[in-house]
């Protein structure tokens, strides 16, 4: 889905708001609060998955064949012992959903974070120095955006999720592959954004002034440009995180993301597909977890966008 990035890049940056005002605004938006609270719950579940499952569940990779139909081996549904039922090998779905949160959150935060750092840096360099460097980076972005990205992700994921991984064993199947793909696919958004912002910023008076006083490039970037980038980049982060969670789920669903026995919501949905008309719990619960988490990020993102810059959400 396109992000209207061109439209965003051409909007003037209003400036940052003090943090306290920001939090006040968040607190008044009820929907945002609920979303934020939900995300806290998800985070706690992910972090405390171990203790929680030892209290109300079972270890996520332990198998309980007695929970399978003795004649056909089909899994059984929710019960008092297994809140979300069991999966086809008899593992506790509840536990796996909790552990799956780890994957989604890691991917979201770490993956998007790295993409943001790399993309923003490259964008700044392209926008500030222009010339050959700009041409190279911009053209690279164009090429990347011409690729059918899911296909590319699928292809690389497929190749790297087999055997010893790729890039000389640096990228192993599983989490590293997924993170690598996410970075590869997302950095362009940030680069384009940063470049556009820097292009308009560098003509502004305060930058001219800084240059007139003899400040070095690095100082100018650090002091004048970066602070003004904070808002739009943050807005983009709120947009990209949910997209990346969905990307990881899609890759795992297609079999090239997280490998078993590590739990991932997308992979659980994939495993549940042949059973979907009988073992409904196995696709419902991971799916709900996925939808609600992504929704929470989206809602929170909407709220943040509304607060930081009302123009941005409209133009998007």
């Amino acid at each position, binding site marked *: 889905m396109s992000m209207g990035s061109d439209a965003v890049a051409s909007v003037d940056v209003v400036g940052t708001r003090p943090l306290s005002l920001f939090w006040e605004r968040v607190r008044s938006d009820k929907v945002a609060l609920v979303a934020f609270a939900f995300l806290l719950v998800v985070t706690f579940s992910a972090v405390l998955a171990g203790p929680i499952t030892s209290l109300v569940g079972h270890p996520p990779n332990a198998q309980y064949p007695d929970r399978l139909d*003795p004649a*056909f081996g089909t899994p059984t549904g929710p019960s008092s012992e297994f809140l979300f039922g069991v999966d086809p090998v008899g593992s506790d779905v509840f536990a796996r959903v909790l552990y799956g949160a780890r994957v989604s959150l890691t991917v979201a935060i770490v993956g998007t974070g790295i993409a943001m750092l790399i993309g923003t840096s490259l964008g700044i360099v392209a926008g500030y120095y222009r010339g050959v460097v700009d041409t190279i980076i911009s053209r690279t972005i164009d090429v990347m955006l011409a690729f059918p990205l899911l296909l590319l992700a699928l292809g690389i994921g497929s190749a790297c999720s087999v055997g010893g991984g790729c890039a000389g064993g640096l990228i192993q199947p599983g989490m590293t592959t997924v993170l690598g793909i996410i970075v590869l696919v997302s950095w362009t958004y940030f680069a384009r954004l940063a470049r556009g912002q820097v292009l308009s910023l560098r003509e502004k008076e305060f930058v001219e002034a800084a240059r007139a006083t003899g400040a070095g490039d690095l100082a100018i970037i650090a002091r004048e440009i970066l602070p003004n980038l904070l808002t739009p980049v943050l807005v983009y982060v709120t947009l990209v995180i949910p997209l990346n969670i969905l990307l990881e789920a899609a890759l795992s669903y297609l079999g090239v993301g997280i490998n078993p026995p590590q739990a991932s919501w997308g992979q659980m949905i994939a495993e549940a597909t042949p059973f979907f008309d009988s073992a409904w719990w196995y696709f419902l619960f991971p799916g709900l977890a996925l939808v609600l988490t992504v929704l929470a990020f989206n809602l929170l993102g909407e709220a943040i966008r509304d607060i930081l810059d009302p123009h941005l959400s409209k133009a998007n």
Partner: protein
Amino acid sequence: MSLHTWRAAVALGASFALGLAMVGSGSGSGANDQHKRGGTLKLISAGDVDSVDPGKTYYSMGWQILTAVHRPLYSIPADSTKTLPDLAASLPRISADGKTVTVRIRPGIRFGPPVNREVTSADVKYAIERSFSVSVTNGYVGLYFSDLVGYPAKPPKTPKPVSGITTPDKYTIVFRLKQAGTTLASALVMTNTAPVPKEYASKYDQKSASDYAFHQAATGPYMFEADGSGNIKGKGYTPGRRMRLVRNPSWSARTDFRPAYVDVVEVRQGFTDTTVGVRQILNGVADAASDYAQIPAATLKQVVTTPKYRDNWYAWANGIAYLGLNTRKKPFDNVNVRRAVNYVVDKNAMRLVVGGPLTGPIATHILGPEFKSKGFEAAGGLGFDPFKSANFAGDVAKAKAEMRKAGYANGLYDGPAITMYTFNASPSPQAAKVAAASLAKIGFNVKVKIASPDAMFTKFCVVERFLPEICTLGWLPDFKDPVTMMDPLFSGKSLNPNYTTNMTGLNDPAVNTAIQKTKLIKDPDARYAAWAQIDKMITRLAPIVPTQWTETVTVISDRIVPGKQLWNAGLVDPAFTSIK
């Protein structure tokens, strides 16, 4: 055992004894065995055949279809296990020294349009020769035909004559072998012995990849629907989409044991969701499946436990599923470690996640019930289990004892993590997970890696440098002779760094010698007994963990009276099946 007893036993949750219930008899069609002529048989499949070229086809789906279109020298009719002369007029005559095999073919068999002439022995000679070439690329000729005098050391780019095959007259073909053996004679059931007219096929075979498949001439009761020039593309065969067989006007029922009841056979491909396919069959939209992708347990349960579908399914034994242990890689170079693994694997749980007892009895050695009177009983039948455990759930104590013998002080493995490769199609990943959990009980940290079947069979479980410690594998016999199990899987001669079917790397001198000697034994019963001894020998060396003697469940519609290819996983035989 009748079908009803089988179901009752399943309901009681009995386990391995059921395996013997090879429900081969008519699936409840009961008294009405009268076959009507006419109608269209509608088959569906998930994937496509590997090829429709009779010189190349190597997978069950291809054989199922092509045996209705082509007549090899010998073949096995439906609902039977006896090999009958097909294109041949009589059984092969083997010379006293065992080095010459002579076959007479029936006169009066004709090629269908557009060739329309009588089949001669030269056509069989050409058919076999072309299967040795790169243009045709056949996967099994190396196994079964390499003993021929003149067998090319390097495969020729296009078909070249082979001196060891001669045709003294137009109905006789003679095979001369470098050494005495029975393998070639048994392999004359393969479809590459079905005749191919040289003057018509050459122009297609001269290409770097022959496309004779799309212009093939039929000798069986059916042919691929073709246009005037004989091209079947788009009419009789649209790759990946559909096939359509119509009656071959040149075929004569008098010369064939095939009844050929139906008028048309249609195959629709692309039903990758087996559950959807099964539903279509139960609804009568389709009649049967043309390949046997594993039916998911939930669907299986629905079919088997619904009374009105009682007569819509049957199971047939076919092949073995096992864990291959790489004997050339630590720690499985140590026989005690391998024996420990054989003790600890919970075969019962593995079978349960695959679908339960209906998917076949638990295997305890190599030759399973499908080799009834061909080595199964002689190898001890179901009673021979060197690694017994209660209810097949595994015996951790005995496993640990073996580990101690291997030098691991407290019976637990303490080395680095090991890798297990398995298929990406359900239920393989589940079965692999169960196996990994069993191995964890003796200290193994197993990393389960998932790969597509193509990646498994072209790289990870066949190419030496990529072989992991464990592969979950299966093997289907090409024809019902133990040589098709033992030789490719356990003989040192099958080892090759670039491609091997002997994933475990077993290269035991005693086993190798025994295999080579047994291939030369002429008397069938003596030979089968010898194979049984080799089975026991190999099982004790524990290069594999046999998990199941797999049974395929075939679902059929109410419309048909099936003829079952018992030699081919019980698939429906188009030339023997009729519409009610």
